[in-house]
């Protein structure tokens, strides 16, 4: 579509508006709070309404078939459904009416669930009356709907994957295998993400790095994949099919010819974040043996710019960041998670050296895989206490908030099995240790996960169950005690008996936290859930999709997941990318400005306020034999904000599908006092 004209002109002038109104029970989600039958009855009497129905589930096959049947048999040419949020099912019902031969934009959706029934408990009359107004407003708009055609644009068959962990890698590979060019960027110097920090992983007990290395090799050798490490997004513009991305990449700082020698050189050391600060590493480093890329990288945050002697030569390393642009059709966000960092003093963390997190213990055991004697802080470990739900399932007002004031009320899901996996590993490697597992609930929900619980029971791991509001207490043992730490808890398995366990090591099973990606979230205009992880539109209906067309999620960026689940989500993301870009064309909603040349007097107010280049321009047209100036919209350049609409003194310009006349009609309907139509019991 090169030019937009008044959609009303597309209508057949004599066409009678025949509206079908459908009010969904949503399986009781709406009908428990709203008298849907009464809504149906009132809608029947509205002008142009030919049929008004209810259904237990309009989105079901049967519900949709009902609409299709009415379109075909009753000549319905406008459809309105009152149901759940439009973000969930507007597209579904547009598809329904399209299948029945109707223009999909002759459909209107009213959100009766999230914005009425779910927020109006105990006010049946009020909720029903509100539904009447909202549906009446919907009918008023529907009456003014005009058929529209989506804007079709060429799409870049190129996807950007942000994040080089297992989810990003899997997405990149699966997308590339579908013939789509992939650029994968990773903020750190090495690929692998959090998975590279693990040892054996459930449910197969395979070595994490070995599994990851195979995947990395496939990704790195795929001709359609380009990898940039130490790179991050600094700017995003455009839309699905045509995103313009600005990337900033830091220098690696090391030439291959000195790659090996530089690792042997003397240089300053810093705490090694890969090992959660348990060890130190040099400022020029490799994350772990066998990491990819194999070339060491300079840690620019800690390198002080002083010369380092390499091969006998003093050498200074320089960071020369480079900026470059990419054009991609879709963006996959695979930015992962970070483990919860307990605050100082939480279960004795950072105050007692014998208190560590589970990720720290995993790294500690990985550093020496062969040892059969467990020591910590210089002493042999005979008694180990594992504590679940640290930084998970907290309750606001009950549990102390984190440093940022947040309270993680969600379950991180993965930590129960990870803790039991660790208990079994400890039992196998250090058979003489006593292992105590303090838990609130055991949630081994995944296939094969329960096996770890059974094995731990058989392995004489001793379970103590605490209540969420009475969590265990970790304190230093009195001087001269046989152990350095005491863990106290009321054990509900022993009818609330106060238990005290003397331990040499306390392991905190910390939950998962969202990665700090505030700037990226703002650039992409994507949403977060109340848990602060990135939000998909709907877990069942539109998984891994965000509300921004062309921006897709993969892995733990959207919530706690096992590796298995992350990889599954990543594969799903790849399929979404392939569906979007595979045809080389994308369709955009045609909600852009259009001009009524009969009302336009060429005053140019619309152009003055428009912030989009070449979206509106003034052209000379001939009307009644006279050459006059008129505003003309280029739909591909128009974002549909409507700034021009409020600027026009003649109402000559409007937004297709969201016109001011439609808003006026909806407002009139909302202003109606429909209380007298209420016949429902109070």
């Amino acid at each position: 579509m090169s030019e937009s004209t008044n959609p009303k002109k597309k209508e057949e002038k004599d066409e009678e508006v025949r509206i079908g109104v459908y009010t969904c029970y949503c399986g009781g989600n709406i009908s428990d709070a709203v008298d849907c039958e009464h809504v149906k009855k009132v809608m029947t009497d509205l002008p142009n309404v030919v049929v008004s129905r209810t259904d237990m589930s309009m989105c079901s096959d049967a519900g949709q078939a009902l609409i299709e049947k009415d379109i075909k048999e009753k000549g319905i040419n406008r459809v309105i459904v009152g149901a759940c949020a439009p973000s969930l099912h507007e597209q579904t019902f547009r598809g329904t009416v399209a299948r029945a031969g109707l223009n999909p934009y002759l459909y209107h959706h009213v959100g009766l669930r999230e914005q009425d029934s779910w927020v109006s408990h105990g006010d049946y009359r009020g909720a029903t009356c509100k539904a009447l107004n909202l549906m009446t407003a919907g009918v008023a708009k529907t009456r003014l709907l005009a058929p529209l055609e989506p804007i079709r644009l060429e799409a870049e068959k190129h996807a950007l994957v942000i994040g080089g962990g297992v989810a990003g890698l899997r997405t990149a590979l699966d997308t590339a295998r579908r013939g789509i060019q992939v650029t994968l960027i990773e903020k750190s110097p090495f690929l692998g993400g959090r998975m590279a920090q693990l040892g054996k992983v459930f449910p197969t007990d395979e070595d994490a790095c070995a599994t990851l290395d195979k995947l990395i090799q496939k990704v790195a050798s795929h001709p359609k994949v380009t990898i940039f490490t130490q790179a991050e997004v600094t700017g995003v513009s455009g839309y699905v099919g045509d995103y313009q991305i600005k990337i900033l990449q830091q220098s690696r700082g090391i030439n291959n010819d000195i790659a090996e020698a530089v690792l042997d050189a003397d240089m300053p050391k810093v705490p090694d974040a890969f090992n959660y600060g348990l060890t130190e590493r040099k400022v020029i480093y490799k994350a772990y043996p066998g990491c990819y890329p194999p070339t060491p990288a300079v840690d620019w945050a800690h390198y002080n710019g002083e010369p380092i002697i390499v091969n006998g030569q003093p050498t200074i390393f320089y960071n020369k960041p480079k900026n470059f642009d990419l054009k991609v059709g879709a963006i996959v966000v695979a930015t992962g998670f970070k483990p919860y960092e307990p605050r100082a003093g939480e279960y004795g963390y950072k105050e007692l050296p014998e208190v560590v997190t589970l990720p720290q213990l995993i790294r500690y055991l990985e550093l020496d895989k062969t040892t059969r004697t467990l020591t910590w802080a210089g002493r042999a470990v005979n008694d180990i206490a594992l504590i679940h739900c640290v930084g998970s399932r907290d309750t606001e007002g009950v549990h102390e908030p984190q440093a940022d004031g947040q309270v993680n009320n969600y379950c991180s899901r993965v930590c129960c099995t990870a803790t039991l996996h660790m208990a079994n590993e400890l039992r196998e490697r250090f058979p003489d240790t006593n292992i105590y597992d303090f838990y609130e609930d055991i949630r081994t929900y995944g296939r094969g996960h329960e096996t770890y619980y059974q094995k731990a029971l058989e392995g004489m791991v001793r379970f103590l169950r605490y209540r969420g509001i009475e969590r265990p207490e970790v304190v230093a043992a009195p001087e001269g005690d046989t152990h350095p730490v005491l863990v106290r808890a009321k054990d509900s398995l022993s009818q609330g008996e106060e238990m005290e366990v003397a331990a040499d090591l306390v392991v905190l099973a910390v939950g998962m936290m969202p990665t700090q990606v505030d700037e990226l979230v703002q650039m992409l205009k994507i949403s977060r859930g109340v848990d602060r992880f990135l939000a998909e539109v709907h877990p069942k209906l539109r998984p891994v999709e965000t509300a921004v067309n062309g921006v897709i999620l993969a892995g733990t960026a959207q919530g706690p997941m096992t590796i298995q689940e992350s990889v599954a989500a990543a594969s799903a993301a790849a399929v979404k990318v392939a569906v979007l870009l595979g045809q080389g064309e994308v369709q955009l909603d045609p909600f852009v400005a259009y001009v009524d040349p009969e009302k336009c007097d060429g005053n140019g107010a619309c152009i003055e306020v428009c912030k989009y280049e070449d979206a509106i321009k003034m052209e000379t047209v001939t009307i009644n034999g006279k050459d006059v100036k008129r505003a003309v919209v280029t739909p591909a350049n128009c974002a549909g904000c409507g700034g021009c609409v409020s600027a026009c003194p003649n109402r000559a310009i409007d937004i297709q599908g969201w016109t001011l006349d439609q808003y006026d009609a909806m407002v009139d309907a909302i202003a109606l006092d429909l209380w007298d139509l209420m016949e429902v019991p109070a």
Partner: protein
Amino acid sequence: MAENKKHKPKILILATISGGYAGADSVGQLHTDYPTNTYILPVLCPCIFPEEFYLRCFEQGIDAILVMYSGTDSPYKGGPERTAVMINQTYPLMKERGIDTRRLRLAAICTVCTKPFLKEVTQMDTLLKGIGFVRDEMTIPEAVQ
């Protein structure tokens, strides 16, 4: 207009699809109640509305309008600024008509701004309990008479 005891002042919420409307959906997902005299209409960007639109709403009997825009999160260039301009230009016109300017309020609401959403709705509902129906305070400006 004589007060109808069953009728409550009506709050129209113009909420951006990328912000306030999704925020309202988040409130729904939390099953948190708020008054039923609230009616949310989705908008791409409220900069579409000229001053006359708001005045017309009041004339039709809408007692308060909450414009829940996306603020700095708006996907539309210049949209938030223009929205603010239009609303600021509406206030003197409301005064001319004797309409309490507190009946029109602009608030930035994001997709997960559940508490700010509830706060805005509750505050406006409380205000309306005090100042009542818009029709009871509206006057026709001399220029229009």
